[in-house]
């Protein structure tokens, strides 16, 4: 009973639209409502669309970078802000700030930092004699610039998960390890890390799902006019572009279905793999 409001919301706003999307992906849309059944046509176009291929590759790159960098940097952030360290509250606030900041503000600030001619990052690089690239408009670097911001932005949230995970580890284990002569480093690798694997698993699953949905940073920091857009546009960005800017609702729904399948497959694979490396208790 207590679940009802949440469950109803989930049903109406999440699950029902999912099935609608699947249905719409087999239709062709009119400008202002109305659609006709078009069978597999959207999917036929999709297979031949080189933009979709680019978007899949770009999404995969962002996801792979995030999958490697987010858990690592969040653990480091958690370790640096364990209770008892100096200025802990300041660090925690700093790490968590991006999570509660508007994406538009985040994007705008980083856009200034990344500016090729007047940005702070390139100014700093120039002090070391390095001629920095046009981070966001150079097709070769843009996707990495976006990934940096995405990783930076999600450290805070994941750090909190690791912090609570670390604090959930009983002190006895550390005492036992110390009696056995384990130093700080080997304590970390043989006690902390194994017992943290459930948290790590949770973080990796969430990170992959989130990075598959990358959109706002690309929309705000790169945009349709940029020469780097072909090398940064993700599936969700393409979904938005086709569905909303180019008014092809049915085709956008088909892209959405591809994304849904990718998310399902990757998450299922992660759950399958967890048996090999996650220790509960």
């Amino acid at each position: 009973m207590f679940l009802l409001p949440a469950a109803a919301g989930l049903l109406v706003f999440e699950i029902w639209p999912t099935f609608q999307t699947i249905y719409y992906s087999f239709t062709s849309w009119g400008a202002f409502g109305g659609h006709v059944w078009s069978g597999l046509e959207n999917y036929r176009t999709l297979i031949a669309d080189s933009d979709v291929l680019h978007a899949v590759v770009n999404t995969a790159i962002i996801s792979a970078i995030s999958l490697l960098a987010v858990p690592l940097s969040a653990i480091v952030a958690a370790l640096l802000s364990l209770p008892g360290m100096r200025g802990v509250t300041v660090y925690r606030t700093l790490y968590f700030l991006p999570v509660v900041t508007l994406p538009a503000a985040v994007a705008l600030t980083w856009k200034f930092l990344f500016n090729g001619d007047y940005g702070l990052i390139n100014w700093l690089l120039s002090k070391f004699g390095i001629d920095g690239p046009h981070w966001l408009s150079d097709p070769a670097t843009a996707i990495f610039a976006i990934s940096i911001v995405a990783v930076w932005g999600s450290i805070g949230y994941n750090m909190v998960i690791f912090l609570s995970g670390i604090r959930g580890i009983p002190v006895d284990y550390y005492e036992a390890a110390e009696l056995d002569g384990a130093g700080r480093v080997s304590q970390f690798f043989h006690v902390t890390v194994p017992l943290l694997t459930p948290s790590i698993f949770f973080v990796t699953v969430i990170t992959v799902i989130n990075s598959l949905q990358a959109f706002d940073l690309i929309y705000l920091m790169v945009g349709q006019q940029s020469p780097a857009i072909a090398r940064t546009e993700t599936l969700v960005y393409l979904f938005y572009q086709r569905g909303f800017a180019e008014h092809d609702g049915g085709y956008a729904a088909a892209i959405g279905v591809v994304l849904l399948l990718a998310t399902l497959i990757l998450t299922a694979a992660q759950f399958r793999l967890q048996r090999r490396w996650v220790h509960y208790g």
Partner: protein
Amino acid sequence: MNTARRLLSLCLTPLLLAAAACSGSSESADNEHVTLTYAIWDQAQSAAMKQIIEEFHAQHPNIDVQVQVTPWESYWTKLQTSITAGSGPDVLWMTMVYAKYYAVGGGIAPLDDKIKDSKLDMGAYVPAVTKAYTVDGKVYGIPKDVNGFGLCYNKKLFDAAKVKYPDDSWTWSDVIAAAQKLTNPQKGVFGFVAPEADELSWYLTVPQVGGQVISDDEKSSGYDKPATIQGIQFWTDMITKYHVSPTLQQTTDTDPLAMLTSGKVAMRYCGSWEPEEIAAVPYGKANIDIAPLPAGPDGNRKYYSNGLANSISAKSKHPQQAWEFAQFLGSERAAEIQAKTGTVIPAYQGHADAYAKAMPEFNLQVFVDHLKYAEPFPASTDTAAWRDTATKQFADAWTGKAPVADVSQRVAEAMNAALAKEKK
């Protein structure tokens, strides 16, 4: 990060949206007090719009109008979704780019009967604008404004390089020659700026050499025509051949208008809505002036001009009151208010003078004189399906990765495919 899911539910649950967001009261009678929503996208013009609304309200105390400003990037997605859901604005700004799409799709209402009943004289407006909003013989918008273009130049940089100020004798070759003299790599100054923005770049030069973006019957792309390619080449040459313009990456990172108003580029093609922004920067106000847009190699001055209109949503619950307001927006008085702010040239003819005098520091007359060369903005029923793709593809030509002719060929093919799909 739930954007995807939010977008999905936004896009695919129009019924829910309709239930959640209702505007105005539900019934309309002539003397009833109603509130209309007026959707616009330019914050710079909202002051003029509010003044117009005040005067309208004084004449029609029963009608309140609320202005809803949505930035251009999201204006169109929001408008389409909300009209589909039946919760959109009553009166709205329309551009030539989307006029046919909204008219054919049934998003905006035809106004002919109302024009006839109110005896509104459509001859008062710039004909090119009226024509662009006439779809299948029906009028779908009351013309609001029209765009002219000119050559913005930095007097200080011209003086320093001892180059004569541009005048109405200038053609492409004069621009190139001056840009070469003005470019000074040591000081980080470029003579010209060649952004990749259709409306502010090749839409101004393609018609000057007889090229076309779209054929007159709107059935095929003109991008594969040699003249069109020549018109586009003018821009890419500035970067890849003469090296007198910042690269595409630079103009993507930094707004070209900001480059002009900070003395980093000496010349830029400007639109008639931009002087206000230039005057807002003290350096720009002191050093920039405007010359006639240079003509094509043979003296041809034709260009593609966009102009806005006020349209009424087909789903408006108060069509009669919306018409009263739209009619007032198209009135001489409304034109006068807009012209005096110097933000736009009114489509209501005979009020360009007030615009030209709005900012004495600039030679705004240049924009007004340009209007007589206006050609209707390239558009088909679904312009958006090929316009964005063209911009995306031409990046390869701007960065020098591929010759303009190759990219143009590619764009033409994609555009022809999109146009063929339209007619189904």
